[in-house]
């Protein structure tokens, strides 16, 4: 169980987290919220990249803010949104780096670590690419390889920062269903951030709504992803539709025309363009 209590963080004088409180018990948890709400900052504070001003983060009653980088990496893995490597390491080498907290840093990975890395690659379906340079992979494959790296880390908690960004329509679903499978079959706790409430509804067990540096609401998707709550955190008029047991949240076009206060010229164009004039 991941428990975050009264977590504060600021970049210089800009306060980004203003007392975050939530509990994530099992399965896939998703943080939803507008840009700048503090989602990424929250993940970075939990995994130790950023040091919070105050607050408490505990995983199964272990205070993780007091752990060393190495001990923390044993129980928490992090999949970043963007991953720019300078040197074109092979895919297997990138995945092997996930073994770091579990090996002697002066000796490096042993053959059995290579086995673990290969198994992780097999699980995400990239074993055939293990000898390729990481930089040659497509966006979706890169994301999968990084998930394999987090798997090789064998941590209880996996954090993923926008695992669907830059992915095409199909790959978004592929990656999320893989993450869901990992969470349920391998009994990992997963916390991720998403931009699309519909994806959160389909793949997550818990949803945390975040706005202006605090978690304003949390619960099961059915209870949290509703017309009123989504429209209030994103400040947009939305409509919810129920299809095949799923609830889809769709924005209403007119609400954007109002909120954006388009200038006269743009207005004119959009009024004349019939394709844009729907409800």
């Amino acid at each position, binding site marked *: 169980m991941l428990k975050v209590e009264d977590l504060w963080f600021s970049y210089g004088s800009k306060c980004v987290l203003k007392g975050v409180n939530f509990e994530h018990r099992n399965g896939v948890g998703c943080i939803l919220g507008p840009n700048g709400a503090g989602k990424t900052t929250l993940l970075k504070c939990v995994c130790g990249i950023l040091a919070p001003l105050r607050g408490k983060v505990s995983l199964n009653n272990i205070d993780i803010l007091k752990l060393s980088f190495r001990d923390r990496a044993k129980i928490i893995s992090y999949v970043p949104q963007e*991953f720019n490597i300078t040197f*074109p*390491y092979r895919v297997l*080498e990138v995945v092997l780096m996930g073994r*770091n907290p579990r090996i002697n*840093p*002066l000796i*490096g990975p042993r053959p059995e670590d290579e086995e673990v890395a290969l198994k992780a690659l097999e699980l995400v379906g990239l074993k055939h690419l293990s000898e390729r340079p990481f930089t040659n992979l497509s966006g979706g494959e890169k994301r999968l390889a990084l998930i394999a790296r987090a798997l090789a880390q064998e941590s209880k908690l996996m954090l993923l920062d926008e695992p669907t960004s830059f992915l095409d329509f199909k790959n978004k679903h592929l990656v999320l269903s893989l993450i869901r499978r990992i969470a349920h079959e391998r009994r990992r706790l997963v916390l991720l951030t998403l931009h699309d409430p519909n994806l959160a509804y389909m793949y997550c067990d818990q949803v945390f709504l975040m706005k202006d540096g605090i978690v304003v609401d949390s619960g099961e998707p059915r209870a949290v992803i509703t017309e009123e709550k989504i429209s209030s955190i994103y400040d947009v008029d939305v409509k919810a539709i129920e299809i095949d047991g799923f609830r889809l949240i769709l924005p209403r076009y007119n609400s954007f025309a109002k909120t954006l206060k388009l200038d006269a010229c743009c207005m004119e164009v959009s009024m004349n363009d019939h394709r844009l004039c729907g409800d």
Partner: protein
Amino acid sequence: MGEELARYSIVFIVCALASLFVGRILFAPWNMTPIDKIVLLYIRLPRVVAAALAGAALGLSGTTFQNVFRNYLAGPSILGTTAGSAFGAAIAILAFPYSPLLIQLSAFAFGLMATIVAYGLARAVGSESMISLVLAGIVVSAVFSGLVGLIKYVADPYNKLPALVYWLLGSFAGTRWCDLYPALPPILIGICTMMLLRWMLNLISLGDEEAKALGVSVSLYRAVAVIAAVLATSASTSLAGMIAWVGIVSPHIARLAVGHDNRKLVPASALVGATLLLVCDDIARSLTPAELPLSVVTDFVGAPTLFAILIKRRFYRFA
């Protein structure tokens, strides 16, 4: 894993053995006069050991700097480490009576300072850009080269200047065992530390956030890596002057053969650096009746080699 490394080791050993018998006095191991034996043991052997160690140190420093600064173009001369060390050594030679320990210390201190200043300048110019580190290195090198020029200007033209100039041009000529000893501890400590950090360099090269998330105390390991690289570079500089190109070319040659994983790249670039500097030193002492300055040879060998590798890398990437 070991295949390419074994091949490199063999090439290196053959080069080292051959270097013992190449020079103004050519002789064969099966037919040595007493004079040849003295040349071998007291002139050639220390020289070969010094060149191999300095080459390995420079190759390793290049690889370490490239990973720590996440930059293909980093290397001890480009960052200004060599120029800083040279200034440190020169000022120690000029200002104090000859003391090897003082030369080492001063070379290390100024080398470290130059590296840190270059990195700080690069951060100030624009943190993540490859070119800003190179530009900062050029600035730092220029300042220290200017200072070295100043030292040359004020140096006693009869006693100290010729030795200083010849040393700055770089040479292993006249390296005796007793010259080698004071440089041995720093160079060996530097080499061993960088060898031990080879797995860590992979993680450091991912950048701060990534490395932290993978359980690395980045600032500690980065500091240790930079200090080790500067220690090795400054020791090799105080041994043989400013040796250009070996530090940046060796990692690139090694990358072509063993790839980018530092577990292989680090030992490979040490072997390549050692072999390269041995060959350059052989050329320097055998090409002309008089000794050529070593940096002249490394310039002629290193610069075109780097260019060829960059071209090849380009084709490789687009193939």
